[in-house]
Each structure stands twice: as C-alpha cells, then as structure tokens.
C-alpha cells in the first residue's frame, strides 16, 4: 500500500534506490559499519542491540525458541562481564560476520505484519463491493 502512495510504485527513483540497496558497495559499507560498531567484539549479534522494551519486541522475544533465548541470555551475560572489566573477546571468539545473522528481526516483522493485518481488517466496516460480486454460487 505504502509503495503506491504518490505514484512512486514504478518510478525510476524507487528502482534506483532498490538497485543501490542491493549493490556491492552498500553491502560492503554496511559490513564495515557493523564490524566497527563494537558489538561483535563484546560477543553480541546485531539483533541483540534492538531495544526490547515495548509489547512488539516482547512478543517477538516470546516466540524465540528456548535454545535461541538461552543463547541470547548467554551473550548478554558475557557482554556484561566483559564491559565491567573493560575488555573485549579474543579475536577468535568474537562474533564473525557469518554468525551475525538476524534472528529477532524476522519475528518482529511477523508480529508487525499481524498487527497491521488486524488493524486493516478492523477498519473494514463491510465486505468490499468487488468481493461481493465475485461470489455467486449455483
């Protein structure tokens, strides 16, 4: 729905933005940025930095598998211990780029989609006319 606002859906600007987002240059920049953020040196994944206050992320956290939840708590405790001693993990123990995969963001997206779907359906006061005409049964 949002992509069609203002007639942007098929515009050249949007197409350019899409190719730019998928470009090697931006991927390399994003990778460099993530590695200089410092969370990997403390043994944290990128998704660990998402603020967990609020019902949306709480619901996503509830849906994590027990194993994932345990690993997440372990990373938090390790990072806390490291930060109290003002140290970092040895380079071989740090989170690598391959390990730093989103595990929470996909669940947040699902919860967001569920809420958005619910709100869209709540806004409907009647069955849309085009749907009514489609259904004729003998």
């Amino acid at each position, binding site marked *: 729905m949002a992509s069609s606002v203002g007639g942007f859906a098929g515009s050249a600007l949007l197409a350019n933005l899409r190719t730019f987002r998928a470009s090697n240059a931006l991927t390399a920049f994003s990778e460099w940025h993530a590695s200089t953020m410092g969370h990997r040196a403390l043994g944290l994944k990128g998704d660990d930095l998402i603020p967990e206050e609020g019902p949306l992320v709480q619901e996503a956290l*509830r*849906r*994590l*598998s027990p194993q994932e939840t345990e690993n997440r708590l372990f990373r938090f405790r390790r990072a806390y211990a490291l930060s109290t001693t003002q140290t970092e993990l040895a380079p071989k123990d740090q989170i690598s780029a391959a390990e730093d995969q989103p595990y929470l963001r996909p*669940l947040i997206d*699902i919860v967001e*989609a*569920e809420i958005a*779907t*619910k709100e869209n*359906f709540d806004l*409907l006061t009647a*069955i849309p006319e085009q749907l009514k005409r*489609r*259904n*004729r*049964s*003998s």
Partner: protein
Amino acid sequence: MLRNTLQQRRSFAIATSAVSYKRVGDQVSSAPAAVKSVTSAANGVKIATLDGRGPASQVAVVVGAGARHEAKAGVAHLLKASLIRARPGDNVVRAVREFELRGNTLYTAVSRENTLIASSFLRDDLVDVVPGLVSQVFNPSFQPYEFLDAIPGVEAETAASLEDPTTRVLDSLHSVAFRRGLGNSLFATPDALHHLKRADLQAFAASHFTADNIAVVGSGVAHEELEALVNSAFEGFSIPSTSSASQTASSYYGGEVRIAGSSSASHLAIGFKSAAFTNTKSYATALVLRALLDGSHRVKWGATSGATGLLAAAAAPGTNVSAFQTSYTDAGLFGLHIQGNASNVKSVAQKSVEAVKRAASSVSDADLARAKKIAIVDYELGQSRDELVADIARQVLASGNFVTVAELAAEISRVSASEVAQAAQALLSSKASVVSYGDLNKLPYADEL
C-alpha cells in the same frame, strides 16, 4: 403498465437437480430433496456432497487419521490444535480474519478416526472457503513458536474435558474395550505433551495426509462447483497418493477399570462389542436396539410418560440409565451408562443387565415399532450440520460412499424383532467392559452384575 410491474410471478416447481435449480425468484413452498454425489478429484481425493439446496453450507476437509492412528500418545490432539497456522509469507491473523470477515466459521476437530478442518458459511462464499481450508491442511510452514503456543491450549482442553465424568468414563471405556488403536485416549495428557516434538507431528502428517486418506465433504453446496474448486485448490500441492502407514485391525478385549472420583455423583458404564458403521444392516439393528433399551426421558416434564425404553424400569429415583451406540470403521461399542446415587448404582446396573437379557430373548412388536421411530428420530436429530459432514466423511473414507439419513431410515424400518434379539444376544456373548467412577466403596465390581 402499472399492473404489469406489480404483477407477481409465482412458481412452485421443485427442481430435480442442483444444476437446474435457480435460487433467484420466489422461494419454493417445500424443501427439495437433497442431492447426494460422490466423485474423486484429479489427484484422487474423494469429494462428497449432500446438497439440500439451502442457503447455509458447510465444507470440511477430513483426514482419515485420528487418535487411533497415533504412534506417540497425544499427537492427534496436538495436531488438531496446531492445524491453523500462518502460511509461508503470510500471517495467521489474515487466515482467521478472512473467514471472520464474511461471518464464516473456521474450526478443527479430532475424533478417534478422523481429523477435520471445516467451515460453515453462506452458500455464495464457497469460492473463498475451499482454498482457505485446503491451504491450511497442506501448510508446509510450521514455526517452533506455533508448536509451543498450541500446547497450553491442549492442556486446558484436556483438563476441562476430563473434568466431566461422562467424558472421562467414555474415554476409559474405549481403552478398556479396545486397549490400543481405538482405545487410545482422545486427549493429550500434560505428560504426553511434554514428550512430543514438532517432528512427531510432521511425521504423523506426512504418513497420513495422503490423497487416498482425504475427503472433502460439503453440505449445501453444488457438487460440480466444489469439485472444480477442489481441483484448482490442490493444483499447488503435490501430495502422496497412498498412505505408507499400516493400519491394524482393531480387536475387542473387555475388562474393568475403577476410578476414584467425587462421591456426589457416581458413574458406571458397561460396554459390549457391537456393530461397525460400515455394515449398514447391523448398524441399523444396533441403533434400533439402543432405542429399544434407552431409558432417558423423551419428554422434558412428566417422569411417568417420558421414559419408555426397557431400561426406564431399571432406573431408581436419583439414578438414571441410558444406552449409547458408538461405531467405527471396523468395530463398535454398545453401552449402558448409569449415573447418580452411588448406593443405587449396583441394583440399577443389575436390573439394566436383566433388561438387556430380556431383549435378547424376545422383543414385542409394540416395543420394536416404537424403537424404530426413536432410532430414526435420534439419528436425524444427531446430525447437526457439523455432525453431518463428519459423518459423511468417515463413511466416504471407509467405503467410498455414504448412506443418507433417508437411506438409513429405510434400513432401520426393515429391521425385524428377531434381528434385534440376535444383536442383543451377540452383545451379551462378548466380555463386558466396565468402568466405574465415583465412590468406589459403594460401586459394584464387574463380576457382581
């Protein structure tokens, strides 16, 4: 001119087939006869409809796998609870709200032999309902949290169901009578749920959700339309044509179980081996025998005139006795259910068994005529819209065809007194299954009856 426009058109024609029937215009003065059709979809899934041509419809996708077929206890119940899930790239809210938007229902159910997902809707919404149901059954996505979220609901369902002594007694009666297979509990216990994994559910679905084991059943839908929609809905899914799971024939054992329970109301259920629904003749006879014996009141007020079955004489004040008949593909269970004051249960049970023995020796014509009417009325009353599709489905899955209420009523009216007496003798020749629940100090043992 004015007269022309005001002139009403009336037609009392009753169409003979679903195709020629037009709902546009006047209502017909009497309900047209229901049309029964059974065919197969392109991939082998059976499609059965009973079109009463009313505006309210029901469609169910039924899988011939239930508590009876489970390799690990509780799989069927948990699968039923987690059958409605988010489809890949979509979310579960849409799946549910698309049904709700039109006021359609969406529910799942599990029995000893079948698992079903069904919807009741207005006739015009068939177009949306069929793809919705099929895509839920063959949903390849199963997230870990969907599995974990289903468990508390199942636990609560089990606790609430087994809290009811009647449900508990009947569940135990099945396990006493059939031990394994049909004897498996319908309800997943917390302990069983603790040992289940997502892979167990997926393995159960993989071995039983096959084309020869699935029926799409409609009530109040045009058969050709349902067939076309089912064919197009199955296009995206490649499902195995035959089931790899081996089905073991059920055998009847009998025995006794005593459960301590609340002393306020005691229950005693006595079960005997009876007819399967696949044999229409003996099934009809069993239904007549049940109606002949059943001592429950048919009129709400007036104790003297209400109960007319042979068991009515056996009942005592505060203790009543009813008869039931449950049938499965290859076995059946006929039972007497006594509930009430624990001190009366023994004498009532003894008199009830005497009543069954009397029925085995001879059946009077007056009793038989009454029992046949009761059997027909009770069978038809039991066929609510939900029950109807479930009943059609289990018959279609077992034998590829189904018997309508009218056909069964005709079969029931052909039952003779000697056949009923023979059926009663056959019951008594099997070893009784006895379940007592309540105040065990007062409840009788099986050998005392």
